[in-house]
């Protein structure tokens, strides 16, 4: 005999449903709190556009960390703020999006809900596989990525832009060489990706162009944001007699403040960190994304797209096209160094200087660039660099 059952009874009780709803909304609230707070701020700024509402070009920006981190994200957010002020442009932003499928959700939301047609997911690790997947799914939306990862054969709606900020690092190396007393420089890097290696090499080449005895000690922390290890790295470097430190991490704040406390000189990266180290800050390699973002907006407003060939897939530039700038010199920089920098800067502006000009050996003694060879900044070899120049003390793998 089957037991009798109340036919009206649902398989789930009311209490379970309520509990489920409560849990779902609590989870939603929690994820909202962690992730998306910047978006609303961004919209507030972005809605300053003057043109008619429906015709606005909606541009989405996604950052891997907070927008005011004195670093990579701040540099991009400053560029975004500049285009938000242009007529007919509305920006949407989301900060602190990890390099996981979460960024795909962020992009999807921007496309489906906010109607974004241009997307700038700015972090290096967003590209593969996240941008690649979404680009295939939304062929009408254009994705622009900072970094050298775009290759021919990838979806047509992906563009890549990057600045030769290693030129600024080369100059920072020159300033460091004029300032150092111990002839030992330090470089705190997160991960051995080609851009970071190129910065390390250019910084070292710049310093050694002034004094070939100078060496650069390299420390990898392993992650883009690793505050304790960054501080430890600076402390151990200072203990080893290093007196100028620069870095390639997402937020140089810890490096700059720790070095200032230890009384050594620093050279900034990504954005201007002078106020973090008022005495020891020499100069810094800063991004200037304003010009390239403005350029993309102008192209789009003129009807050009990546798909119709109006926008080039790869946009690169150095000082001449306003991709980077130097932080104003700190009090410790000598007149001699300043004059040297002005002279080199002019050479970068008219393109008469090449950083990677043979003969250049790597730090294991192999010749990497032969004596009669010279790499133009656009060279693919430089965008896939995986060796360290002579004078760098460290290893890539």
């Amino acid at each position, binding site marked *: 005999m089957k037991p009798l059952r109340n036919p009206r009874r649902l398989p789930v009780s009311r209490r379970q449903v309520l509990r489920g709803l409560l849990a779902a909304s609590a989870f939603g609230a929690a994820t909202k*709190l962690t992730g998306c707070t910047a978006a609303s701020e961004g919209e507030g700024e972005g809605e300053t556009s003057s043109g008619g509402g429906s015709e606005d070009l909606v541009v989405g920006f996604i950052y891997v960390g907070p927008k005011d981190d*004195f670093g990579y994200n701040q540099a991009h957010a400053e560029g975004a703020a500049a285009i938000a002020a242009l007529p007919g442009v509305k920006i949407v932003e989301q900060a602190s999006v990890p390099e996981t499928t979460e960024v795909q959700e962020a992009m999807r939301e921007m496309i489906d809900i906010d109607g974004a047609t241009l997307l700038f997911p700015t972090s290096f690790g967003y590209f593969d596989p996240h941008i690649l997947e979404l680009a295939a799914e939304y062929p009408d939306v254009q994705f622009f990525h900072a970094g050298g990862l775009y290759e021919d054969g990838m979806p047509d709606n992906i563009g890549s832009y990057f600045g030769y900020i290693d030129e600024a690092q080369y100059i920072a190396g020159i300033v460091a060489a004029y300032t150092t007393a111990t002839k030992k420089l330090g470089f705190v890097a997160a991960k051995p990706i080609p851009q970071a290696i190129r910065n390390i090499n250019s910084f070292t080449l710049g310093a050694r162009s002034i004094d070939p005895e100078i060496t650069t000690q390299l420390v990898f*922390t392993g992650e883009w944001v690793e505050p304790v290890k960054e501080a430890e790295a600076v402390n151990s470097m200072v*203990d080893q*007699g*290093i007196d100028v430190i620069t870095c390639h991490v997402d937020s140089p704040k810890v490096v700059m403040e720790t070095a200032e406390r230890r009384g050594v000189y620093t050279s900034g990266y990504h954005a201007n960190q002078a106020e*973090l180290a008022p005495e020891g800050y020499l100069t810094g390699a800063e991004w200037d994304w304003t010009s390239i973002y403005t350029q993309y907006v102008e192209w789009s407003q003129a009807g050009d797209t990546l798909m119709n060939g109006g926008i080039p897939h790869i946009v690169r530039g150095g000082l001449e096209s306003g991709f980077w700038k130097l932080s104003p010199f700190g009090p410790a920089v000598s007149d001699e160094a300043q004059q040297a920098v002005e002279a080199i800067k002019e050479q970068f502006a008219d393109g008469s200087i090449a950083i990677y000009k043979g003969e250049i050996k790597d730090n294991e003694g192999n010749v990497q660039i032969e004596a009669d060879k010279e790499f133009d900044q656009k060279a693919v070899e430089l965008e896939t660099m995986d060796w360290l120049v002579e004078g760098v003390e460290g290893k890539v793998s």
Partner: protein
Amino acid sequence: MAEALGWLGVPLAIAAGTMRGSTPFLFVSLGECLTEKSGKINLGLEGTLLTGAMSAYAISYLAQDSVGEFLAPWLGVLAAGLAGMVLGAIHGWLSQQPRVSDVAVGIAMIIFGSGIAFFLGKPFIQPIAPKLMTLDLGAWSNVPQLQDALRISPLFLLGLAIAPLLRWFFKSTRWGLFVRAVGDSPEAARAMGISIFKVRMLSIVAGSFLAGIGGASLSLYYPGVWTERISTGQGLMAVALVIFARWNPINCLYASLLFGGAQALGPALQSVGVDSFYYIFNAAPYILTLFIAIFTCSPQKTLVGSPGALGTNK
């Protein structure tokens, strides 16, 4: 300018890193030790650590004009502890409801604590807050590296003092007995006429107070900034560390020192030129946690010193 130390720099960096970096581990693990002794586990201390770090930095920044640069960070430390207590009270109440798992509540509290810290902490990422004072115990030395290594935070010394104090509390006080009784055998405690709810609530709240102060040490002493990824999992590691320390506050102290030193290993070795395997050295604290988890887990027997009611949901 300082002279190079060479290989001597490695032990120095580890020793200095131990004193600088172990404070958060120490406070969180002592807090967790107290909580677990009462029979509940609080995984949410990772969130508490972040909330503490954020509140300390925010209060120190906001109060610097009204109370001065010396007192403001101390006010921040207090605020961090109080913020921790609020989170602890939520955990203490929720995890003691009938048929509620304290582990699940703890995970929810990680998300909640970090979420609230990120949300309220947004405006404080950029400003520079006054840091906590340090005691310069190295003034006798003329080696600048040593002087710097001996620039010790009073919070570290406070943690050093709390560890034996907590041990004494468990061992020799009436209240300590209550906590142990509730943790080991809730039925017996109830028979003694002790309110299990109150004892656990107080233990969790006091433990979270300590964890909040651990957060203050992150943002106001070392590394001394507020960013969203300041903790890098230190709160969770400290919870693992309590198991490693067998719920003994003195062992918590040693374990925290070990973990603090392990963080300094990777960068210190690289800066003297050991540049192979840096990923492994950088991962040292996490590898250590993993090994502890492996060596201390056994399906056959419970650990010596483990509170009897821990994980039983009683």
